[in-house]
């Protein structure tokens, strides 16, 4: 138990550090790299939660594809250190931070409140990991097959749309 706790705390710290750096660093490339670290951390957290397949998918999709895309785009833009990384306005800034804080606080409060009412059961009841992947597939292709198909269509549309957007020469201002 202790080693698992240790693993959790280690990964959680890494993840949180990555997340914080994503938000606070002023060089977007470092932001993206920190986010990649966070993604890998979340993937590790999935492993601690026995979601091996999802951990792999998280690595492939998020860390391997989405974040690489981000990094590539940022590098293409050649954005170095940003002068104005954050929004202006003291009042609105305070309001925004307060909102974030309140959201986090309220959700945590809700979590603690429910823990007091019904403490977590602790032990998971899921079957071993291999069956879990198979079961995931079963569920995905039977009960949620419509969602799956819809996602497929969505991806197709997005692929076409992204290509169309990226190929356009700056929207309505082409030539101006």
């Amino acid at each position, binding site marked *: 138990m202790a080693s698992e706790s240790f693993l959790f705390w280690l990964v959680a710290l890494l993840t949180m550090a990555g997340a914080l750096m994503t938000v606070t660093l002023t060089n977007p490339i470092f932001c993206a790299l920190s986010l990649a670290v966070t993604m890998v951390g979340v993937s590790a957290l999935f492993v601690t939660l026995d979601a091996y397949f999802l951990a792999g998918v998280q690595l492939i999709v998020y860390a391997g594809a989405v974040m690489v895309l981000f990094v590539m785009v940022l590098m293409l833009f050649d954005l170095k250190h940003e002068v104005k990384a954050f*929004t202006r306005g003291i009042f*609105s800034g305070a309001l*925004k931070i307060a909102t974030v804080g309140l959201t986090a606080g309220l*959700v945590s409060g809700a979590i603690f*409140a429910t823990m007091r009412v019904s403490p977590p059961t602790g032990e998971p009841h899921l079957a071993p990991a291999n069956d879990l992947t198979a079961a995931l597939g079963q569920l995905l292709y039977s009960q949620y097959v419509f969602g799956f198909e819809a996602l497929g269509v969505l991806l197709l549309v997005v692929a076409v749309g992204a290509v169309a957007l990226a190929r356009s020469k700056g929207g309505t201002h082409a030539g101006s």
Partner: protein
Amino acid sequence: MDAQFFLIVLLFSPLIGFLINGFRYRHHSANVAGIIATAAAGLSFLAALALVFQLVNFAADSQAGTSAVHRRLAVDLFQWLDVGLLKVSASFVIDPISAIMILVVTGVGSLIHLFSIGYMHHDAGAAKYFAYLNLFLFNMLVLVTGESLPVMFVGWEGVGLCSYLLIGFWFTDEQKAAAGMKAFITNRIGDAAFVLGMFILFFAIGSLSFQTLNEGARRFADEAPLGWLHPITLATLFLFIGATGKSAQIPLYVWLPDAMAGPTPVSALIHAATMVTAGVYMIVRLNALFMMAPLTMMIIAIVGALTAVMAASIGLTQWDIKKVLAYSTVSQLGYMFLACGVGAFSAAMFHLMTHAFFKALMFLGSGSVIHAMHEEQDIRKMGGLRKALPITHATFVLGWLAIIGIPPFAGFFSKDEILWKTFSSPLGHPLLWVVGAAGAMMTAFYMTRLVALTFWGESRVPKGVHPHESPPTMTIPLGVLGVLSVVGGWLGIPHLIGSAMPFHTDNILESFLAHSIVPLPGGESSDSSLEVGLMLTSVVLASAMAGLAFLFYAKKSTAPARIAEALGGFYRLVYNKYFVDEAYFRALINPLMRASQKLWYYVDVSLIDRTTYVLSDTIRGGGSFVRSLQSGNLQQYALYIGLGVVTVLSIILVRG
């Protein structure tokens, strides 16, 4: 093959023709488009023949020997409307009534398509013209075969649209475009009444299918006689107003003479043979319902008789060859309504059919004349065309004999049946007969005048115009229609004459229609001596008037001018069509426009606009404040979302 197949061919072959020509109207020459359109119409005619053949055999198969057979081919294509209680399926029915109509529509229609190939030869928009013509045919067929009022209404509106398009076919001429608009708007008044009638019927009977309507009408038989405010009376009255719009009766007939602005074959097809008879057809279709409402019947008879005589009197004075024919059409339609009004529905159908033949013939003949005269329509500038246009003349004379009611031409039988029924029917009245007979006399006079001025006497053709006979595509339809104008009437030879003939041809048409039409309550009066007497009277009167007109116009008499002078004001009144158009303008249209102007100024500008300005200023003031919230700054929006989340979460946490 079953009825469904033929019905689909019947309906859709013109539609497909329309689509082909309509989509490629820029690329098809007059010949190509005309052949496509004529082929479509011809195919439709063949399907109609097949259907009618089936319908006739129906009788022989099932109940040989009896005359009253329930002949009916119904085809249900799909469920069209299903809204609450209203369920309408796109179903079509072929029964004796619609059988006559589809034969007339597709038969005469095909001939006129053929005629149009020659007539529209030089027109640049010929393909468009043929596309419209085919579309018209489709809509007309939907109208006549539709099994319920809504389906009929689709066709009803469709033919109205095509009529509008074809009247204003040469839309670059402002007057012609205006004529199209006039027709459309006048029809719209009738259509509104038609729709109101449908609403009332649905309210009263709960269905709009003809069968249920005609059966449902019997429910009210106990309540007879129905008063003015009874739903059936109201509904039939509204439907009749709809019919007056489509069929050009008083008070909505004003559009039809103007509709002559369209190409002449269109006048023949739409404004003489088929579309304008839709009102008559509709009343015959719902005969059981109309029979339930004697008050409506009375109105129909009176309106029909008045229209017949009034239009005929206008026809006496017109100089435009097509205008004369147009008023003649209005007058003949009046006869049909008169027949409907006295309960002689089969006579109305009979006259509808014969009229379709001879009036289409005369219109096409006039088209041929106009074509020969290089678009000249004034009969004062014609005369003596007999030599130049022998075929046209011969066929036109056949039509003339038919319309003035000389036996054994078609018009004689049908008109005489109407007059006899007007006299003898329990719903009729001798006074109506007198009016009808007067109309018949005038008809004889003005038609003779027309023929005499156009074809006979001396030539008044201006120099430089060399009339020539039309090409075969135009003369063949004339010939066919000429034959039909002669023999068409033999389908309905009255019992009286029929029994005297060697082969004992009874009134075929009446027995064919027998089951579809409610018999008159009082039964047939069979005073044969009176019938013969009336028949002879009308023939003699018509011949006399025709002779008079011949003397006046063919022999270059000054009598007409003197009579016109003697009548003075009355002549001018008639010549100017009783100033009906002007009266409408003065009594209805101008006051309406002035009132609308006043409404616009006092209500719209002063009241509503001012109020809305105040309101809008207030709202704009408020809006500019609220706008600052919606700045387009995405992060601000995200903040709102966040604040919303916080609020909802706090509420949840505080409450639970």
